[in-house]
């Protein structure tokens, strides 16, 4: 099972956090910091797996991560998941984001937190892998976007807002 999915940048600023087990808000923030601390001190080109931090279950859990430009994508998983499988899943996630945002960058994640959550929800549900087929995921996301647009068009007239 996937216990948590975290995205943060090279300075440890969280850009997405999704926990599939319940922790208090404080603990969640601490886990993000601890994970950043563990992952960020590792060299490039070392392996993508390491034992989880103490807060999220220690050696029973593994952190599987990838580092893309300014962002770290970290999945914390228990022993029932395949390490390489999760590594590929991160890749699918990133490729999907790339397609949905057209050349995704950190700013897209910052300004569209809700979209990122929705895309993730198409892939992972309650800590289990729901869908791995990128075309299927994108079809779902597109359908949502269409629905959103049609509703905005009907119910919402553009206007100034703050």
């Amino acid at each position, binding site marked *: *099972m996937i216990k948590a999915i975290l995205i943060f940048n090279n300075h440890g600023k*969280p*850009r*997405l*956090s*999704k926990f*599939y087990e*319940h922790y208090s*808000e404080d603990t969640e*923030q601490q886990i993000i910091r601890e994970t950043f601390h563990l992952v960020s001190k*590792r*060299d490039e*080109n*070392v*392996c*993508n*797996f*390491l*034992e989880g931090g103490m807060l999220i279950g220690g*050696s*029973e859990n593994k952190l599987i991560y990838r580092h893309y430009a300014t962002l770290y994508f970290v999945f914390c998983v228990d022993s*029932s998941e*395949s*390490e*390489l*499988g999760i*590594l*590929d*899943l991160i*890749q699918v996630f990133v490729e999907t984001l790339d397609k949905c945002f057209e050349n995704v960058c950190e700013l897209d994640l*910052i*300004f569209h*937190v*809700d979209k990122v*959550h*929705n895309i993730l*929800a198409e892939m992972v*549900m*309650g800590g*289990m*892998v*729901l*869908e*791995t*087929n*990128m*075309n*299927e995921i994108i079809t*779902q996301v597109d*359908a*949502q976007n269409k*629905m*959103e647009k049609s*509703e*905005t068009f009907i*119910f*919402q007239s553009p206007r*100034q*807002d*703050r």
Partner: protein
Amino acid sequence: MRGLAVFISDIRNCKSKEAEIKRINKELANIRSKFKGDKALDGYSKKKYVCKLLFIFLLGHDIDFGHMEAVNLLSSNKYTEKQIGYLFISVLVNSNSDLISLINNAIKNDLSSRNPTFMNLALHCIANVGSREMAEAFAAEVPRILVAGDTMDSVKQSAALCLLRLNTTSPDLVPMGEWTARVVHLLNDQHLGVVTAATSLITTLAQKSPEDFKTSVSLAVARLSRIVSSASTDLQDYTYYFVAAPWLSVKLLRLLQCYPPPEDGAIRGRLTECLETILNKAQEPPKSKKVQHSNAKNAVLFEAISLIIHHDSEPTLLVRACNQLGQFLQHRETNLRYLALESMCTLASSEFSHEAVKTHIETVINALKSERDVSVRQRAVDLLYAMCDRSNAKQIVAEMLSYLETADYSIREEIVLKVAILAEKYAVDYTWYVDTILNLIRFAGDYVSDEVWYRVIQIVINRDEVQGYAAKTVFEALQAPACHENLVKVGGYILGEFGNLIAGDSRSSPLIQFDLLHSKFHLCSVPTRALLLSAYIKFINLFPEVKGTIQEVLRSDSQLRNADVELQQRAVEYLRLSCIASTDILATVLEEMPPFPERESSILAKLKKKKGPGNLHPDLDENRKERSVNGGTVAASPTPSTDLLGLGSTIATQNSAPPVSKGTSLLVDVFSENIIPDMRCLPLAPFPSRFVCKNNGVLYENQLLQIGLKSEFRQNLGRMYVFFGNKTSTQFMNFAASVFILCIPADPTVDGGAQLQQILNIECVSDFVDAPVLNIQFRYGGTLQNIAVKLPITLNKFFQPTEMTSQDFFQRWKQLGAPQQEVQKIFKAKNSMDTEVTKAKIMGFGAALLDGVDPNPSNFVGAGVIHTKTTQVGCLLRLEPNTQAQMYRLTLRTSRDTVSQRLCDLLSEQF
């Protein structure tokens, strides 16, 4: 959403943390007023504000409002609003929110809406929140959606994972039923996404009740075979970088690992064929240079190898798996080297392949020396440990020792433990063992825990043949200008016992030995000095010629008037003893220590605790080969009077205690089977039986000491506050309290009339019968007091009450109808049969008292769930009083026979 963008930009432009907090507070006030305002917000604004809240939450700020607005969004019939409502709830609402019933209502509507998008949103929400209330509300509905013929594929996928989630959070609420057979057939579904989700679900269910899902094996093999033999284009979208459905293959291989090899020859043959094909594909040239291609391919390959190792039955496959892993050990991809080391660890415990694994020893040693990544080096250490046997122990121990000098600080302690265990287990001659341990202390003295040096002393004492060598070696080691304190301890103890064996040599005459030890004295901490003082008095017995010198040392002000009470007392007593006792008495009192009783190695227990039993392969191979080659010996001669070195009592209380600082509370893993109760010899005071249904009160009282308790339990965790009250007007000295063999450092003194508090954290690992024992030791006046009481930690403390209707209750009651699941007891009432008292007791016991469930109103029924770390056990109970006969009949039904028995025993004592 411009407002959102502006806000985020503002935050990003903040120069300081204070400015950021100020901006956030301003925004929170703004949103709050918008939500409170009487103008109805349109969906767009609501969405915008909820997004802002999400962003603020992500930055680490608490959000304490907006929940109600989010819940209102759920009942909107616009997709956008509904979606953002669900998003807010799955991120921000935790499982015990009081809004759950409102949320449940909205979910119920969406589930019955027949709109697949809405149904998916609702199922996602159930899976992400996964609370008990939700499980109660939807445990029956979700399976129905899953197997209904007209459900869309995407909804089926969500329903499968939703059910999986409910089953892991509240297994007792998800009843098996006719849907189980139909779930298995989802493995044949056209849509590979559905099959993937279903495989995850079946794997989890099969781990819990393998019998019910046995039929999945043949279906899984068939499916796997179709995937493996398909051309890479057959599966279209589910082909990932030229690999056919890698995730599904991995999941299917995991599912098969829940079962032994198939008995049916045809199925077994087909599976073997699949595994061979996967192994063959590894040798084919890659279809793409992309790393994703090799990743996906190897994910399947590693899972296939896991299955081969799990079956452990086909020698040819095992050899091929081992060779494949051997190739990966030298692969240029770090990830593959890491995984190969990890898989080989499990392979090393297989009888067929232990020898094959051993052939890779040079590569693994090389990895230890040259890998840049500490995670990989750690796996190499694990593998060396797993592949170690008598033939290669010397080489492996030597390599690990030399690695220790440069090892990462974070893994040194673990390596020290592993080296100590291997050295002991495979020692052919004990001189090698003694050398190894002394080297450990020399290279990594700070990481040598007490267990390790206790252990070397135990072994030296129990083996005559090594005593002289040990004395000589420590004597030489102590001559180094700077030596670790642990070495001084070992040296002091061993020379005190066996210094006479080397005293014949003029280079290590008694006086030289004494001077050597005493030259370290002033550099050492108090416990070590205390040990050295004991060694000195032993010297007086061994070597009458140095008596004068030692008496002189003991008589000096720095000893007799030492600020430390323990040291002062030892100096005074030893000096007096040496002056008044005759040689005979001295010889009797200071006799050589008797051999320690043989027990499981405390070091092994410590490593188990550190790593969890799963990672301990030599343990597995212990079962396979002869038990503990060298006869493990351990610890604890709990008779302080004969043990003048003071070690016996220290070991008895501190054995296996991890180094902890004063006053901290630790997670006492009291129910783990690895721990050996150590002080059973003391008279045991049982706890009063009222504690079964109560959490607070006075646990124990005698004329000196009162022990009070306050405890709280939640799921499988508990916390207990123990209060030690001194009823006398005199101070207690050397106060120590310990649970089993784990010492909780308490303040060593308790003033007259004062109270001392300790906190114990408790975790229920699995169901249990014996309560942990609290040992207390202190000095009152001149005498040492020993008290042992059982702590009132009983299985029912980990109860969570469950409310249910009469119908549910009897349905579950019937499901738990197997003979071993029910335990019944008929017994005479010990107290008056008062209805209200009985009710209070059942609730105190932890179960929910269910009114109006039993047709006979004078009967009591209750329900609850016992939480342990690994499982949850649903429990139902029924108590039927017979006032005329003054008898009760108590029936317990749970899914586990040991639990039924224990709960019945506990509860029947209460009436």
